[in-house]
């Protein structure tokens, strides 16, 4: 009897504990909504001067989290050292991350984000989610750099556009990326081929390459959307900025635009003719890129200018990597053949809730100095948004020289788009493109599948849309 009674007491205790278990977290989660997001930026405590334009406090620490991808983080370390020597006593704590969104999400919610973030990589934070929490960086570009020039005047044209959302300069994209069609100059010359300027020429070259057992293109499963980038760029050149605005603003018939359709048809012809190396949808993208840069099984590869650095160790010697504009459909395209998709990448952001907002901006200002920018161009073989940091010989890189050539030839005909990254569409689009490049779908399927992805975002009321004009 005693035993039975004890068991009842224990059960009663457990029951009470369970009830508490249910109630406590509920109350907790409700409370956590109301709480959280405290913090807030501390006002400037240092004196504002040309050497300290944002009024950073003396002997403070800047907490920076930098995406560690193709460019590494040593270029920020370099700037960090310059920062520390310019402000003795202050330290720049620079931490790498390969997973920005996952790693920083709790810090954003908790109200203690880092002072400077390179929000880049496949796992970057979507801008629509954090836009209201970011500092407007206009004060940074209006400040003077370490050499005493106003930063705004030292930048390439149009580089601020990708970081501007609804009129707010929320991100400063540090690296200038040129999207082009890359090839080996020596390989092309050896075969006596010329660079095709229209898709018809491209098809003709494909037939010649086939005779020599080569393919026109290779692709990897994680990078199938590089061909979407190529198609959109070609379509914008063909049909003008209408095409771009339709896509950016998620129009219901955006992908059915005649210019896009004509590019898709041209691509479809090339795919069906077997000018893409088969098996790409099962190949890891760097392995596919090596088939182009090392094994030379294919002639061209559409990519951003990071490609040279990315494939540095897997490029055949004497390759002479060179970039040319994407072909157009006709020679009478609305924008000239030389028009380029170029965007500044590696968006650096300063969260308003950081402990040392002024410090974050100050480190960014140091990065935009001529010294730090030249160091980047020299070590990464890619230009930053800061002008005149690449000498005529491109530090010995043919790719870097061709980037400068392309940018100069394009003049003001430089465009970019944000919708893919802004709404996180790349993952869904990859599936569609892998199937298309595999030759398992056609133009109509491709169009409707891409349109469906666009429609889904447009019809989702929980997604904040950003209108592009």
């Amino acid at each position, binding site marked *: *009897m005693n035993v039975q009674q004890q068991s009842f007491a224990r059960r009663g205790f457990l029951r009470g504990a369970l009830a508490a278990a249910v109630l406590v977290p509920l109350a907790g989660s409700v409370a956590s909504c109301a709480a959280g997001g405290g913090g807030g930026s501390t006002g400037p405590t240092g004196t504002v001067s040309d050497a300290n334009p944002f009024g950073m406090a003396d002997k403070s620490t800047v907490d920076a989290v930098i995406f560690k991808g193709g460019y590494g983080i040593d270029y920020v370390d370099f700037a960090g050292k310059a920062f520390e020597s310019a402000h003795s006593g202050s330290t720049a704590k620079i931490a790498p991350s390969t997973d920005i969104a996952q790693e920083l999400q709790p810090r*954003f919610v908790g109200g203690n984000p880092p002072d400077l973030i390179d929000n880049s990589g496949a796992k970057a934070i979507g801008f629509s989610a954090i836009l209201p929490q970011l500092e407007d960086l206009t004060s940074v570009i209006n400040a003077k750099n370490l050499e005493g020039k106003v930063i705004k005047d030292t930048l390439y044209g149009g580089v601020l556009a990708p970081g501007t959302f609804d009129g707010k300069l929320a991100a400063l994209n540090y690296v200038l990326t040129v999207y082009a069609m890359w090839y080996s100059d020596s390989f092309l010359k050896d075969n006596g081929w010329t660079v095709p300027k229209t898709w018809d020429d491209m098809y003709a070259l494909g037939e010649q390459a086939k005779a020599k057992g080569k393919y026109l293109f290779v692709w990897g499963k994680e990078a199938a959307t590089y061909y979407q980038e190529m198609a959109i760029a070609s379509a914008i050149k063909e049909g003008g900025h209408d095409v771009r605005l339709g896509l950016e603003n998620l129009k219901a018939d955006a992908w059915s635009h005649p210019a896009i359709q004509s590019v898709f048809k041209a691509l479809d012809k090339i795919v069906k003719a077997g000018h893409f190396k088969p098996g790409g*949808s099962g190949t890891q993208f760097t392995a596919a890129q090596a088939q182009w840069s090392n094994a030379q099984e294919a002639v061209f590869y559409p990519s951003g200018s990071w490609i040279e650095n990315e494939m540095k160790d897997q490029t055949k010697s004497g390759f002479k990597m060179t970039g040319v504009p994407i072909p157009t459909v006709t020679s009478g395209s609305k924008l000239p053949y030389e028009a380029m998709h170029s965007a500044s990448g590696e968006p650096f952001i300063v969260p308003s809730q950081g402990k040392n907002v002024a410090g974050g901006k100050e480190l960014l200002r140091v990065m935009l100095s001529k010294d730090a920018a030249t160091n980047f161009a020299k070590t990464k073989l890619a230009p930053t948004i800061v002008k005149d940091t690449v000498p005529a010989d491109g530090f010995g890189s043919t790719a870097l020289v061709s980037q400068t050539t392309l940018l100069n030839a394009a003049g003001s005909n430089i465009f970019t788009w944000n919708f893919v990254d802004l709404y996180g569409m790349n993952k*869904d689009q990859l599936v569609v493109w892998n199937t298309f490049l595999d030759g398992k779908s056609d133009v109509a399927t491709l169009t409707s599948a891409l349109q469906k992805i666009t429609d889904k975002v447009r019809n989702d009321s929980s997604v904040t849309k950003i209108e592009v004009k």
Partner: protein
Amino acid sequence: MTPVKTRTSRNDVGPTAVVPESAPPVVRRRRKPLTWDKVSFFGVFLGLPLAIYIVFVISPFAQAFYYSMTDWSGFSSKMNFIGLENYRKIFTDDIFMKALGNNILLVIFLPIITIILSLVLATLVTVGGSSKGQIKGLRNSSFYRVVSFFPYTIPAIAIGIMWGQIYDPSGGLLNGMLTSLGLDQFKSYAWLGDKSTAMIATMFVIVWGFVGFYMVLFVAGIKGIPAETFEAARIDGAGRFRTAVSITIPLIRDNIQTAYIYMGILALDAFVYMAALNPGGGPDNSTLVMAQQLFFTAFTKSQFGLASAMGVVLAIATLIFSGIVFLVNRLTGGDKDVSN
């Protein structure tokens, strides 16, 4: 002597306590005072573990359930309560339903294939040997047992990367072997890039990784069966197959049920293998699983509310699955104790 002594000391309340039924009800209802001894015992052995469990297990669950009814973006502390809207959204979303379908496919096939294979192997190395003399496994069975356990010692992500290379269309081991055998249609064949083979190829990798482990589990179970049982069956004229079906399986039924549930839970998750072999969800999303879709929704689309709802669906699916396994086991007579 000792047990008798204890019994007397326990019952030495008096002669009335000898017959418990006649104890006065007043004594039964009286609560013993909460002594410090008792309270501290509760505190340490019940309160502390319970508190840890509540903080680290129950409360995240409850919180996730709450978040699943909001439109939380994940990066701010602001959110609106939207009721079951997220659930409506995911059940009308073709990609999530596809992922759910893939998980169901995995849950049906993975445990069955793995368990059948490992049962066969376990039988072979324990009772599948010579039919004369002592009951034993095949010759060198201890060697096979160790070798087949190897894959389990490799981390899942390494298995994924390794098989990703083996399946590589151009330079992969598999296509290399097939083409050297003269099967030219497999030159550049994308095992993971073709809708019809991606899922099968992925399942193969998971089975490959787990067969050894479950084999060892079943070997332990079979070793627990007295050899006489097998000998008796053999004398009665039962062959190896009959022995396996009528003796081994009923006697290690509990092990099989446990294995089935573990393997099923793994199949409902399967994130690591899928992410390593086909990070994007595979051709036509044919290898996309719920856990992957949850991850994309949360971290690339910044829709944590929606992702939490997916997590809740995943948890409920797991509960339903283990419920079904228990039920099936019960219905097929699994609760009958056959070991005596």
